[in-house]
């Protein structure tokens, strides 16, 4: 019998365009304190710690060592770090708990996009020989994908605008979101994408606590059980992919058991409105599914934390009884190259 692991607590910062007055550690510390307080655990009680962040955002090598100081790793802790979104750190922590080596895990992620030019920084993620020298930025690549969708008849500019509007309207109920309420659709940033189709650039942090079996029930009145968790990657070259589809998201969802029964809620990490179209199709989400009640990445997209926040938001809805079965998704790489899907459930009420 496989161990059952649950998300038992979630906390996030207020996501903001700039946090000049805060270091990464200062941005993260209140979030760590909050997530620990929700469970009454202290750092020393945690069995395994795993984080996700990027040196390229921080602008220095080994940037994660600074935030480890914020965790308070003394006496020494069992700890690891991925240079990926925190959702993948959660995957590593989940696998650790499945082995039985630990009963609780702290997962955190953070990113400050404000010190640099994010569109330029993300070009450094591309094939260094054939693509990066051209500096195609993240918005331009997403626009290629959006145009492919329009050409395929999957969407049009007004449908895309409606996705942005719906997301920011939903975010009015989310005090942590960066963009809330009506936001002008604006001019084309890179045709066919308008500013309203693009995520806000900002800084933020998030943290989650995982626990196994009875420990989860002790720490949380209604744990969000991870029924399935899987992630898959696609070819890097955009020319080798059908940008209107996401076979990796679909395969991850299938492996995570998402198609076994319908979900009520889906938190999708779709930084661009057009990417929600791709993901809804790949994940077979019908009109009856509540998509991104938090506002999603179009309302707040702190790079490296935004995927973990999707899992945290989905879990929080289960914690408070607003949902029984939810899908959470995280992505990485240009045009949804890599995708992670989690299926979360609450105990029957």
């Amino acid at each position, binding site marked *: *019998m*496989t*161990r059952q692991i649950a998300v038992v607590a979630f906390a996030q910062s207020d996501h903001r365009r700039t946090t000049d007055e805060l270091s990464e550690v200062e941005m993260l510390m209140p979030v760590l304190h909050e997530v620990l307080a929700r469970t009454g655990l202290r750092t020393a009680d945690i069995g395994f*710690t795993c984080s996700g962040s*990027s*040196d*390229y955002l921080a602008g*220095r*090598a*080994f940037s*994660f*060592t600074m935030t*480890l*100081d914020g965790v*308070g*790793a*003394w*006496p*020494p*802790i*069992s*700890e*690891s*770090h*991925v*240079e*990926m979104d925190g959702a*993948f750190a959660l*995957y*590593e922590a989940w*696998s*650790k708990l*499945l*082995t*039985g*080596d630990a009963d609780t895990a702290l997962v955190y992620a953070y990113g400050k996009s404000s010190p640099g030019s994010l569109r330029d*920084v*993300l070009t*450094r*993620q*591309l*094939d*260094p*020989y054939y693509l*990066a020298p051209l500096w195609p930025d993240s918005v331009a690549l997403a626009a290629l994908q959006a145009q492919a969708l329009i050409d395929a008849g999957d969407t049009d500019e007004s449908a895309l605008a409606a996705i942005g509007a719906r997301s920011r309207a939903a975010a009015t109920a989310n005090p942590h979101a960066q963009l809330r309420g009506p936001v002008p659709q604006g001019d084309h940033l890179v045709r066919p994408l308008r500013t309203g189709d693009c995520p806000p650039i900002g800084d933020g942090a998030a943290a989650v606590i995982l626990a196994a079996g009875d420990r989860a029930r002790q720490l949380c009145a209604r744990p969000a059980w991870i029924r399935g968790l*899987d*992630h*898959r*990657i*696609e*070819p*890097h*070259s955009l020319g080798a992919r059908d940008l209107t589809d996401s*076979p*990796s998201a679909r395969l991850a969802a299938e492996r995570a058991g998402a198609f076994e029964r319908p979900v009520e809620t889906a938190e999708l990490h779709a930084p661009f409105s057009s990417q929600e179209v791709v993901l809804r199709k790949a994940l077979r989400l019908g009109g009856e599914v509540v998509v991104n009640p938090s506002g999603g990445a179009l309302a707040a997209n702190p790079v490296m934390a935004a995927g973990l926040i999707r899992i945290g938001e989905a879990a929080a809805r289960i914690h408070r009884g607003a949902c029984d079965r939810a899908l959470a998704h995280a992505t*990485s*790489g*240009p045009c949804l*190259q*890599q995708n992670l899907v989690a299926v979360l459930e609450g105990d029957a009420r």
Partner: protein
Amino acid sequence: MSKEPVAVVGIGQSKHAAARRDVSLAGLVREAARRAVDDAELSWADIDAVVIGKAPDFFEGVMMPELYLADALGAVGKPVLRVHTAGSVGGSTALVAANLVAARLHGTVLTVAFEKQSESNAMWGLSLPIPFQQPLLAGAGGFFAPHVRAYMRRSGAPDTVGALVAHKDRRNALKNPYAHLHEHDITLEKVMAAPMLWDPVRYSETCPSSDGACAMVLTDRAGAARAPRPPAWLLGGAMRSEPTLFAGKDFVSPRAGRDCAADVYRQAGITDPRRDIDAVEMYVPFSWYEPMWLENLGFAEEGEGWKLTEAGVTALDGDLPVNMSGGVLSTNPIGASGMLRFAEAALQVRGQAGEHQVPRARKVLGHAYGGGSQFFAMWLVGAEPPER
């Protein structure tokens, strides 16, 4: 539920060199990965997931390069995880991969670690700019030299011990065809005559900057049963971290290192490491770290590690050989350096270490560390499967 036993059934590494201008980043990782998959007599289709590790992305100037490397590693349609835990990353990466098998999430996992340091200047890459650090240090040696000095003072070790380690490791490297440095004319006199770089660390006692990659195929019990060559079995593995700087930190023998070793020994049922473990491949980027880690890992009492080195115990024909491959002192692609230690330990218990094979090596420890002596990753592998 007990954990699935984990076996190493394929090991590969690139030829390491100061600059591998003949290969791209993808070519470098594929060279090692291909050799590991071939060693296991598997094909790319047999690999269920890939776990890749490397040190800071700035070393090559590619942010999250695993995205671009997915194709070269045969990972399309599969899960890819990218680990970064500073210098210990090669070890941590292998442990993350082992966990996927132990948790029964995947049957067969490819794990890869690399660094292509010729793409930039690693010494300055390791010297953080203002405002992150005072402009006092040049490279990792500037950070570690005072801790070596503290060890010398604390233990009363004679000045010559560091040179003995460097001489031994560089001579061991002559038996390892993949090693970066092959100094055929090396003598102890030459080691001692080298210029002082970071007092007390001489140029001859410091690691090179290398391009290189290492890969392993890890699999479950069923996979091990199908393996064409004897597997190495994971008997214990652990990671420990502590902060970089704090009042009371013991830089000479960090508690995270001691705790990590104790965890591994507990898992593997090791009560007396000096007696129960046949050889050690440890992360020694500066010669003096051999006696320091011998103590930290419990092979010698505090202040006594240098005596093992001086007496030849750690030589290839000694009774506790250390760094049979030539170690980090002979090959240092930082992101891969930890995995090279883990892989050498596995090669030894499989009896596949060639000219640097230790006879009858049944249990061998692989060790990695990173950051400011704060991140530790270790595994103990054996020729026999775990008893549980």
